[in-house]
């Protein structure tokens, strides 16, 4: 922690938060030591063994005023300091570079204004960034410890987060709001690049920028990736936490419906059902309820595209 304090901060917000932290912790430490030492001193000084006669003191109005008054002033300064630090996070310059963020169980997706789409956040250094974030399922929270910022990502509303990175490099992005099974694995990175490098990537056809930091590899630009299906379903037959899409159509499988087993041949009707209402039937050997209900996430058009995409993987 102390290393963090001393090294150059990765962003202005980190600097602000650290100084507020140092202020509050120092005041608190003084109070804590004061209280503890006084207490221990009294216990020794007025120990019963020493045979003091106890003195009944019922109170002292001045003391009460002092120990309400001084803490009041202290906490007001803490509030003010904290509020100013907060302002540095929320005052967003007009020209901020906007990136849209979609969170889903358990994957981040960053959509740039020119249509680029990544699962790692690439940003230029020393440029104000504005993230507009929305979730498609449950609550998540985008947390960048190095910049000391976070904001929840919630379905049905757009929350925003803003920062300016001062140093190039790559930092963790974590999900800080509990979102189910793989909450603790919902990590990705933010890669801060020199301006020229970023522009070069941003204006090129390349999906990944040319940095020496390896980003999480990108799978496919298809709807399956965009809607987050590939987080759990593989396209190449390998087993993830959900059945692979490869060779799915026409396959025989055993599903559990209301607790009883049934044999089913996968057809379009079945796919439709198991995508829109996955809890109605569960494939044997997989966890029920894991698969997010897609009813509110996909429209008919997208559903048809997805089904034909799965179809084409045979």
């Amino acid at each position: 922690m102390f290393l963090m304090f001393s090294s150059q901060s990765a962003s202005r917000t980190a600097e602000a938060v650290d100084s507020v932290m140092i202020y509050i912790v120092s005041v608190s430490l003084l109070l804590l030591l004061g209280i503890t030492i006084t207490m221990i001193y009294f216990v020794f000084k007025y120990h019963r063994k020493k045979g003091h006669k106890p003195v009944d003191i019922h109170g002292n109005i001045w003391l009460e005023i002092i120990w309400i008054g001084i803490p009041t002033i202290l906490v007001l300064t803490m509030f003010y300091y904290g509020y100013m630090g907060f302002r540095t996070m929320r005052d967003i310059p007009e020209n901020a570079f906007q990136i849209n963020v979609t969170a889903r169980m358990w994957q981040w997706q960053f959509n740039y204004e020119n249509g680029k789409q990544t699962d790692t956040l690439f940003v230029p250094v020393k440029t104000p960034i504005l993230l507009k974030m929305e979730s498609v399922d449950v609550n998540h929270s985008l947390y960048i410890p190095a910049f000391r910022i976070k904001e929840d990502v919630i379905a049905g509303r757009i929350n925003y987060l803003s920062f300016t990175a001062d140093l190039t490099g790559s930092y963790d992005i974590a999900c800080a709001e509990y979102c189910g099974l793989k909450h603790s694995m919902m990590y990705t990175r933010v890669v801060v690049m020199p301006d020229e490098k970023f522009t070069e990537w941003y204006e090129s056809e390349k999906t990944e920028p040319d940095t020496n930091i390896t980003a999480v590899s990108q799978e496919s630009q298809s709807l399956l990736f965009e809607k987050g299906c590939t987080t759990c379903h593989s396209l190449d037959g390998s087993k993830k936490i959900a059945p692979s899409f490869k060779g799915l159509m026409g396959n025989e499988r055993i599903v559990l419906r209301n607790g009883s087993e049934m044999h089913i041949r996968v057809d379009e009707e079945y796919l439709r059902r198991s995508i829109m209402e996955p809890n109605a039937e569960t494939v044997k050997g997989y966890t029920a309820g894991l698969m997010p209900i897609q009813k509110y996430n996909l429209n008919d058009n997208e559903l048809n595209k997805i089904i034909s995409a799965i179809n084409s993987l045979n």
Partner: protein
Amino acid sequence: MANGTVALEEKSFYEESTNKYSGILSWLLTTDHKRIGLLYLVTICAFFIVGVILGILMRLELIAPGPTIMEAQTYNTLFTLHGVIMIFLFIIPGLPAIFGNFFLPLQIGAKDVAFPRLNLLSWYIYVIGAILVLISLFLPGGPIDTGWTFYIPYSVRSTTNVSLAIFAAFVLGFSSILTGLNFITTVHRMRAPGMGWFRMPLFIWSIYSTAWIQIIATPVIGITILLVIMERAFGVGIFDPALGGDPILYQHLFWIYSHPAVYIMVLPAMGVVSEIIPTFARRTIFGYKAIAFSSLAIAFVGYLVWAHHMFTSGISDTARWIFSLLTFIVALPSGVKVFNWVATMYKGSIDPKPPFLWVMSFIVLFSIGGLTGLVLGSLATDIHLHDTYFVVAHFHYVMFGGTGTIFFGALFYWFPKMFGKMYSIKWANISVALFFIAFNMLYFPKFIMGYMGMPRRYFDYLPEFTNLQVISTVGSWLMGITMIIIFANLIYSVKKGKKSPENPWGGVTLEWHTASPPPLENFHEIPTVTHEPYDFSQLEEMKHESK
């Protein structure tokens, strides 16, 4: 009080019962507040041990990165159950239901609480709630995995037994409400002659304030939980964004209850501290009125700050700074208490017996917890620390280090009164010391991890946190040893302990004016109160009385 021969004839509440049954039925059908208090003691301790074992399992899982002894899903249900059990089954009912029940009538010189049968009913409701929690573990679907905050929409999407588990929380809330209602009426109607409001012991003040929070705040979570169940069962659109709802409204309603609830947890503990310090310093409390009113103030201001749990949820920036400001205000009355307690030690005649040692440990641990609460109340730092281990450390310091410590403190203070026996002072001293060390080892590393950016509710973590996690886990083993010492000492003493003198510590509040353990209706005749609550000049008279 009574002379020797009478004392021999005198039957304690163990030997005499309020009903015609004997054996176990005389307990299960009792309306005696003391027996009900003991019923709570046994059930609550049982659940505390369950919660503690879940805690130790979590620590074991976190000893190394990656899966060590369990799957991610198991871990998620573990911390949820740990939270639910500790909050709803241990710490919220803990002090009021056990010590409030046992000592509130004794301390105000009453025969019983205002509604004795309702009191028994509350215990049964508590037990039903607890059983529902247990049933929810074993039904198909699996134990609940939402975290103790049951945040929407995950709690609507999860296929685990969320409905049953939160219904249990609803039932437990009912028990809490009835207890609160009972206590308020008792304090208003049953005080002994001469016991004006400012002659009440401070424990009564704190229980009274707590009771108000219980009846005013609990219904809000009750209805919220009920609606989540409706939403799961019938698809009624209330909170789920897929049906137009707003998850943030759920968070508002949840914390409207749950922030005041943290004061349900800590206020009774503060009351016990205000009892123990004067007794062992053998002088009157410093600033009686300041402490009494700060209890009411905490209860009241506690309603104004709930959204400090939501600083990153996307509430408006205006609301954020208003709630941050109010949060700082709520710290002031707690400060008043701490300062007055320390001042009470000034020029006392201090005898640091185990209950007093627990109190000293409380003051340090609670101050650390409370002061880190200030770090969380400040906007800039909370944005960084919200939902990290820093918060986990904060609330274990205030809940376990604060209330948990005093749970033991109260037990060690009133043990002779409740059971008429004395425990081993030596082992008690050892357990306080061990507790203090183990506690800091277990939870202090979490502050550091939190500041380094380790989010909470994480089954797995980045390798850089390994060392601190290991320290913490080892701390939990030490803590386990401490718990075993504490409970072994007490359980052994209930069975085989030395008989305790009537008034081993020299307390002067009314509970010490009667036999240990007290007779069925507490006092031979309702006492008339002529002294301030902590007037130790009575001590001489009391000695003469019993000789």
